[in-house]
Each structure stands twice: as C-alpha cells, then as structure tokens.
C-alpha cells in the first residue's frame, strides 16, 4: 500500500538507532501528503551500508501547531514510506 496526495498520515514514533531522515520534531505527528517525490532506497538503511530497494518518498505537510504546539505556518518534510503509517 502506498500513499497518495491528500492522504492523512502519521510519522512513526520508532526510535531509530543511528542515521534517520525522520526529524525528531516530526515523530508521531499527523500530516497530509502533498506529493509523491519519486522512489529512492531508504537513506536510513543506506547509511548502514544496506543495499535496499527503492520505496516511495513523499512531501508531507504538517501544521506548525501539530509539530511545535504553536504557530500558524506549516512545514513540509520529505519522508520515505517507511517513516509513515496510516492515520489510525
């Protein structure tokens, strides 16, 4: 299953030991997929020297209030499919 523009998603809360492209401030936050940004091997895995297949990468928009508890702007974060889960 992949996500599409307009889908609500939630960034995973998994505690990655090592390099990750999922910033700490976004973990557990709900956002909306803006667009699919191609497919690339997960950087978190490549940083560990793993040869992994490509997976979708998304631009996900988060409300600043969701991330930081305040602010009227939004933040778009580039995240891999493995960084995300459904909104449930």
């Amino acid at each position: 299953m992949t996500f599409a523009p307009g889908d609500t998603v939630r960034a995973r809360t998994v505690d990655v030991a090592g390099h990750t492209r999922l910033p700490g401030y976004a973990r557990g936050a709900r956002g909306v997929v803006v667009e699919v940004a191609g497919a690339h091997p997960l950087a978190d895995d490549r940083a560990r020297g793993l040869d992994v297949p490509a997976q979708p990468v998304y631009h996900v928009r988060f409300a600043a209030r969701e991330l930081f508890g305040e602010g009227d702007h939004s933040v778009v974060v580039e995240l891999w499919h493995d960084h995300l889960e459904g909104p449930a």
Partner: protein
Amino acid sequence: MSRVNDVGGAIGFPAVVEEPDEPRFHHDWEAHVVALNGALIRRGVYNLDEFRDAQERLPVEQFRSSGYYERWFAAIGTLLVEKGVCAPGELAP
C-alpha cells in the same frame, strides 16, 4: 532519542545571519575537502548517507565546535579508517 544534528524545533539558538555575497568557499582547503568527498563517493568507497551518518557520529563537543567543512573532513577520516582505506591517524589536516 535524537542525535546531535537533530535540532529542528529546538530553542536557544541565535538567529541565522546571512553573509552578503557569500563566497562558495572561505578557504582553499574547503574546496579540496568537497572534491575529495565527491571522488570517494563516486568511486563507491562510501555513499552519501554513510557520509551523513559519520558526521552525526562525531563526538558531540566536536560536532558543535567544528565548522561545516571541518565536520566533512572529520567524517571522511572516520569512514576511510572504517573502510580500511587509511590507518588511524594517517589522514591529518
């Protein structure tokens, strides 16, 4: 847990000051570091994500007190030793 690089949303940092007409490099050695890193990645010695990881693994005090390309050079040294290309201490600034 987050590593030393993961400071997005953190408070207490000074404002970002933009340098007018900022040059691509401030010192000649910085260009050499960029060229060296590009050559090592193109040769497949390590990949870009391993390079980012090596920067994030620097000791916290070193990470915070180093300049941008100083971190690059330190990460290159870490990876060259780990990949068996250089002996520890062989690569010196």
